């Protein structure tokens, strides 16, 4: 009996130790610039946020839109994208970024200033974080081009979205 116990002890002693679980390497991250609403100044403001590296431009586009829906911690800074807004598809061609949204895009903002803030929070955020060869953003809704984002027919809004939009910082041109 003693012999058996000695053999088991020796076997346990001389067995190679279990290998440590593989060390989890943190995914590489990088900083992106996102444009939110500064409620005090009532204009866009740039906020930096750490996000995982994206494999390609399409992944980055989805990631940016997703982060634009997450409220920043800073005081008096708010999101402009409604919660039910979904990005259906995204791709790039030439110098244009194409983004196709669901129907929640229509009427997601109203008034000239409201539409400008909403549209340019997306345009500015996308173009700030993609290769600089991309200069413009083309919006579509459920695969269709629209003249405006107005809710009472495509002719009822303010900002023209039939053609792609370039970045704009929504500042008084006299003070810029």
């Amino acid at each position, binding site marked *: 009996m003693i012999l058996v116990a000695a053999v088991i002890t020796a076997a346990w002693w001389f067995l190679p130790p279990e290998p440590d679980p593989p060390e989890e390497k943190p995914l590489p991250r990088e900083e992106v610039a996102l444009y939110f609403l500064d409620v005090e100044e*009532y204009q866009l403001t740039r906020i930096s946020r750490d996000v995982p590296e994206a494999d390609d431009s399409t992944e980055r586009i989805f990631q940016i839109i997703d982060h634009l829906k997450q409220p920043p911690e800073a005081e008096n800074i708010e999101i402009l994208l409604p919660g039910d807004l979904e990005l259906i598809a995204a791709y790039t061609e030439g110098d244009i970024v194409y983004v196709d949204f669901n129907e929640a895009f229509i009427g997601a903002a109203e*008034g000239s200033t*409201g539409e400008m803030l909403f549209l340019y929070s997306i345009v500015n955020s996308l173009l700030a974080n993609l290769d600089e060869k991309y200069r*413009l953003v083309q919006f579509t809704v459920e695969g269709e081009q629209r*003249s405006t984002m*107005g809710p*009472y027919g495509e002719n*009822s809004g303010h*900002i023209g979205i039939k053609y792609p939009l370039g970045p704009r910082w929504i500042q*008084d041109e006299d003070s810029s």
Partner: protein
Amino acid sequence: MKKYCLPFLIGMVLILAFMPRSARAQQVNIVDAGGDLLRRVNALEFDNKYFFDLYDFFKAIDFDVNWNETTRRLTVSGADEKFRFSPGAGRVMVADDGLYPAENLRQENGRLYLDAEQTAGLLKTHTEKEYIWNPSREQMQVARAEDFQAEIDPAADDEDPIARFLEEIPETGEEEILVVIDPGHGGRDPGAIGANGLHEKEVVLQISLALRDYIEENYPRIKPVLTRDDDRFIPLQDRTRMANEQQADLFVSIHANSGRAGASGFEVFTLSSEADDEEAQELAEIENSALRYEGVDGEELKDIQWILQQLQGTVHTRESREFARIIDDELDGDLSLPSRGVKQAPFFVLKDARMPAVLVETGFLSNPREAEKLGTRKFQQEIAAGLAGALENYRQNRY
């Protein structure tokens, strides 16, 4: 010797008659209904007319007087009335009543003067007191209206001094202009809905109608045309099509803004092109190649027409910005709302305009205080008066 005297005297008379007359400093009396002296104020005599030093005059009749060096405007406030004199624009803003031309405002040695008779007319019309300017006695008589009942000549009472004042003002720009005023939204499109339930389409229609009326009453050289004068839906592209077909000189689209409850102020927008740089470069290249043409065939003509269209667009862009700045300046002084400045964006309603075109956001309906204001006749008329002043200012400077 005597034979030279007569020609010499005639020469001297002619020199004196035609030499430029300079203004003479004077002092005039302000007296009460009984003729008793109340104050003496500085004035200027020019061409047999008296001009009050407005700063001294309004101080003397117990108004609060404020000269803003930055805007170069003199604001005077009495118990219930307020006037703002803008010598640069040649006009006076009367709170609650609108803008009046005042081209007889003079600036001498850093002081602001207005013709005594016009000053009396302005005060008589817009205050509860009677002001009568007596040029032969060089005095201004002031009293409560009832104190003057016995003295007022009934025939003279029919004559409205402001109307006479307006008739006497010479026009500096002679050209008439056609302005298309576009009340935004309408019909099935209510536009923004205010914190108080007010619909944007109703507010902007009221403002546009007030603007049309104000222009027709005060600026005969501006012809206003509305894209809609009732509650109907007009597609965006049809609005500028109307202006293009009528060969309008200016296009003004009127809106009320929306956003967060705290957002406040008015904004003036002009059209931006998202590909300005690229188009400018392409234009320059074709323009350069066109300059080398010796003959003009069909293709070259198309190029040149394209160049002319692009150049016209560039001129309209510049003029639109200039017009937008004039509107911003007028409204900034006259409205009790902050200016959010002049901005550019690719507005769908402006893109086909073949004339200088702007879009004015008059205030935020999403802001409860501004929504309440936008719903009042008084505020709508203030906006109309400011916009009309800007149109006249632009017309006089451009035409």
